[in-house]
């Protein structure tokens, strides 16, 4: 089967921030080479690890993110390293990097310095605050970016601190936006024959996730706060059930689906005092926003949800066309009959003789399907092959090794 991006070559110098970006292109067929620093890619030392063995060859996260890529382990600061990297630029279409603005310039390797030599390159920088602006050199990680981008403020318990999500989702957001931007620049390259420089700000990618909080502030002057697990309005919130929690999103017009059907359901279940929910007042948006309404509703709902498991509620709610979802954990997902039927989980890489299992295709293309063709590389696995392709002979390779330019 053909691959949509098999004609493209990408160099990834981005470490964590752009790892998912190059994965997206790799799994569509692009030839992706990780430029790993001599001490190895940062994510090799990040968990979870296979069988919880803290061994850089056993990071499940690294294997998930870097299957289908090659590894060239080298020192880009040495003169010979710079020359080698430039040879790589010459044969690449796309470069992604996440260095602090100014660093590459100090090495003579910035886009600005090289664009005339490599005018075809699409160069994508993914940095915390972008290439220009007063915060461009600020130190940051996922936690501080989720904070500065505004997502953390919207999450957490009202009686505790705001909460930055688990899972480095700021880096995933940035990687997705970067991949889209690269494809847009590529379309422009077809038209103009010229590459481009892309400046992705992770803070701004996080800010896309603030939903309508900025528009509420702009249009109504209100600052949206975190609600925790409390109800946004009756029928929209997290409720306890027999074996965990369930999220209902049973609103009406303009948010959620199924309020009227939820009220019917509660009455069919003969929840005491649920008849009052049939009164016209309970279809009035203004009333439903009031604390009083939420306080009347919650105990009725809790009595109901606690009778059932999250899966029972989910199945029956979906049958009734009420928007709701169980608060699943990983085992629930692994056991999901739906995801099994679709064979979503499967091998994504290999560690020694063991298959690494993980999430599969995020989309299914009929002619050029997503797929993984080879496991994540060992550190520097492709050093020799790549150097040979560039025209280096065995002597050159040994010399570069001795000089500490490659491993």
């Amino acid at each position, binding site marked *: 089967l*053909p691959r949509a991006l098999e004609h493209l070559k990408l160099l990834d110098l981005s470490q964590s921030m752009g790892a998912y970006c190059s994965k997206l292109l790799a799994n569509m067929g692009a030839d992706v080479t990780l430029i790993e620093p001599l001490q190895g890619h940062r994510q090799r030392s990040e968990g*979870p690890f296979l069988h*919880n063995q803290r061994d850089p060859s056993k990071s*499940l*996260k690294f294997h*998930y993110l870097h299957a289908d890529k090659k590894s060239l382990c080298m020192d880009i600061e040495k003169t010979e390293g710079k020359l080698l990297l430039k040879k790589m630029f010459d044969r690449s279409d796309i470069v992604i990097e996440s260095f602090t603005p100014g660093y590459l310039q100090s090495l003579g390797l910035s886009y600005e310095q090289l664009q005339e030599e490599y005018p075809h390159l699409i160069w994508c920088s993914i940095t915390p605050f972008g290439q220009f*602006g007063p915060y461009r050199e600020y*130190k940051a*990680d996922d*936690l*501080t*970016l989720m904070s500065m*981008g*505004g997502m953390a403020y*919207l999450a*957490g318990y009202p009686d505790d*601190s*705001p909460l930055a*999500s688990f*899972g480095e*989702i700021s880096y*995933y957001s940035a990687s*997705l*936006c*970067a991949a889209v931007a690269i494809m*847009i*620049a590529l379309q422009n390259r077809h038209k103009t024959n*010229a590459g481009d*420089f*892309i400046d*992705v*700000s992770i*803070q701004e990618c996080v*800010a896309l*996730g*603030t*939903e*309508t*909080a*900025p528009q509420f*502030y702009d249009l109504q002057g209100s600052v949206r706060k975190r609600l*925790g697990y409390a109800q946004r309005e009756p029928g929209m919130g*997290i409720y306890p059930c027999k074996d965990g929690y369930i*999220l209902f999103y049973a609103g009406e017009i*303009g948010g959620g689906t199924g309020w009227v059907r939820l009220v019917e359901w509660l009455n069919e279940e003969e929840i005491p005092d649920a008849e009052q929910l049939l009164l016209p007042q309970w279809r009035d948006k203004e009333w439903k926003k009031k604390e009083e309404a939420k306080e009347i509703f919650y105990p009725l709902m809790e009595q109901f949800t606690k009778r059932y498991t999250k899966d029972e509620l989910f199945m029956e709610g*979906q049958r009734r*066309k009420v928007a709701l*979802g169980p608060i*699943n954990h990983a*085992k629930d*997902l692994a056991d999901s009959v739906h*995801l099994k*039927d*679709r064979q*979503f989980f499967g091998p994504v890489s290999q560690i020694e003789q063991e298959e690494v299992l993980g999430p*599969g295709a995020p*989309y*299914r*293309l009929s*002619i050029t399907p997503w797929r993984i063709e080879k496991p994540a590389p060992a550190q520097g696995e492709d050093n020799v092959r790549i150097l040979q392709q560039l025209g280096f002979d065995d002597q050159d390779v040994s010399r570069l090794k001795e000089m500490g330019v490659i491993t």
Partner: protein
Amino acid sequence: VSTAKPLEGIRIVDFTWVGAGSFTTKFFADFGAEVIKIESTTRPDQLRRAEPLVGDKGLNESGYFANRNTNKKSITLNMKDPRSVAIVKELIKDSDIVANSFTPNTMEKWGLGYEEVKKVKDDVIYLCMPMQGTTGPHKDFLGYGLTINALIGMIHMNGLPGRPPVGTGTNYPDHVPNPGHAAFAVLSAIEYKNRTGEGQYIELSQVESSISIFPEPLLAYLNNNEIMEAKGHQHPTKIPYGIYRCQGEDRWCALSVGNDQEWESLCQAIPALRNHPHFDTIEKRRANEKQLDEVISKWTIEQTAEDVMACLQGHGIPSGIVQDAEDLVSKDKNLQQRQFWQRLDHAVMGETLYHGTPFKFNKIPTAYRQAAPLIGQHNEELKKWLHLSEEDYQKLLDDRVIQ
């Protein structure tokens, strides 16, 4: 100033609605594609009535809808009338992409499933992005970004031990993961079509696309049989790592220390940490984490979040204000200088605020051209697109085919 529109010449017949789908086609509209939203006045996009609203009656007053539909066109058709289906097919003949985010079979009922569409447009790129995909026992299930958050384990993983989980508090999958994946998939298909002339069918399950960017709990379970639980702000190697209360009402600053050098710098910034016998090794800092957080909080609470960040950044420590909407829109100097926020004049809402694109190019402008369309604003263009006479157009209006 460049006026490059990289996606100019591409036309999308766009049936997507609500959160994720609309944001997907927005990428295309913003970079020059002609995106024609097919809407209905009897069953309008829910977001047209979603808060924040400028008024309280019409379908043209939602800040939620506006923010996701810049640079698009809107026509309103009664899809139950076969003449509407014929109109859509005519549009598709001159288009490249057909997109929808309905539950499965909606398009098929209208005779606009992939196979039918292919008959009028052989090389079409056809995107469908229902919540759970088009196959499998739960394919007809309905949901929103928040219910996807629940389904994929993102709510479970966010909270404090012993308390109900809270998640991200938003419909996060609608904002980046699903539109990002969908746009990338369509752009990849375009790239393939550029080379081969071939179109294709793309199915995106919003649940699966969202799990792809939240893999760690699944990797731990599928390979190690381990169920991860929410632990608040806990990092396997960084400490201190958290969000600390500052002076003022609900003001906070995040900070994160990932190595010895940063710890030394933190000790320079916060004198009470210096030479403290409980904190002088990373093991002790972990064992005495609660006390460590208390000492830091005592220092942060005396200062504004702005001052805390300035001081810590001055010492080279990753730190950042927990910014609220007001900070983002009217205080953040970086976002201001980068002109992230954009304001557009909308025929009913007036000048309002839009999230900008989170990336900039040297050669491609990112300033939006037009505010979101009014419902049916571009109906008259059907005359041009379909070469309709005035009488034919009027008849379609009179018959409520065009609404």
